[in-house]
């Protein structure tokens, strides 16, 4: 049992745990959606003075900020005290592709050193990629009214057509960039 939990979790176990998170949030009278926190952060920092979109009672969203603080702590606990390996069990095909693109630690570390080691801070090109990626995620999530948790999980479990459209959009954008842009970026 303990060994099962310290190894990378199989997909069906990870999926079931995410569904439990969804249930717990619904049961406590809330909704499951992480990108709303970015809007709350904007409001907290006074964005309401610039755009009416940020004029809402952000304190009422405090519970969700607490959830995201918990996610940070959870990431810390998992990586330091639970996971018995940092390697991600991606397929050998993926490893070969990524090594060819210059990701030498593919299959050996949790996140690519190229993008997420502290060396990234001194590489303006990598900084630009992270800024671009983050900006599109933040802009797109709010434009679409939700992200993977809000649409792909919350929305689809409640059979919402708009969420289905959004998820199709996620994959149109993701497949396009992954196949046609990423080979030029690295």
């Amino acid at each position: 049992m303990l060994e099962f939990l310290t190894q990378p979790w199989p997909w069906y176990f990870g999926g079931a745990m995410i569904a439990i998170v969804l249930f717990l949030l619904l049961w406590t009278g809330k909704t499951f959606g992480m990108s709303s926190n970015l809007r709350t952060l904007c409001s907290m920092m006074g964005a309401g003075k610039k755009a009416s979109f940020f004029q809402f009672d952000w304190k009422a969203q405090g519970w969700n900020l607490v959830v995201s603080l918990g996610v940070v702590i959870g990431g810390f606990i998992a990586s330091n005290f639970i996971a018995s390996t940092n390697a991600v069990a991606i397929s050998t095909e993926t490893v070969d592709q990524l090594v060819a693109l210059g990701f030498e630690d593919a299959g050996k570390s949790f996140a690519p050193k190229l993008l997420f080691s502290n060396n990234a801070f001194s590489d303006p090109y990598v900084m630009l990629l992270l800024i671009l990626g983050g900006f599109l995620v933040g802009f797109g999530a709010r434009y679409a009214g939700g992200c993977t948790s809000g649409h792909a999980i919350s929305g689809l479990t409640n059979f919402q057509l708009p969420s289905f459209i959004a998820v199709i959009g996620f994959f149109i954008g993701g497949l396009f960039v992954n196949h046609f842009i990423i080979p030029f970026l690295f």
Partner: protein
Amino acid sequence: MKTIIYLFIGIFFGITLYMSEVSSWFRIYEMFQFNSFHMYGVIGSAVFFGAIFTFLIKKLKIKSVFDQTLISLTDKEKGWKRYLIGGIIFGCGWAISGACPGPMFSLLGAGFMPIVVVIASATLGTFFYGLIRSKLPH
């Protein structure tokens, strides 16, 4: 008391995102390459079990644990433009950063510090949406 409960739900979610490798850039890359079933399995089983929970909540008229009111699930606004265009933009960013808003926070806790830049620019992207919202098709 409530705050502690939400903190624990978050911790549980953060552990799940890390241990199921959903937070890994490598897994997102692999998903878009169709090289593994893993990510489709995680999302698919989350939707499968989540749909059962959601169905039971409605069917059994389960009440909210704190205030005993009926749990109501609000429908998303009708339309398609914002969902399709916004979704495509989100997907483009997802493929580059390899992290959506939940995993970003879990990566921060796991000590991958450059994710701070992604979180900051995602917040900026959200702010920019708020600024130009009235000019966009919805």
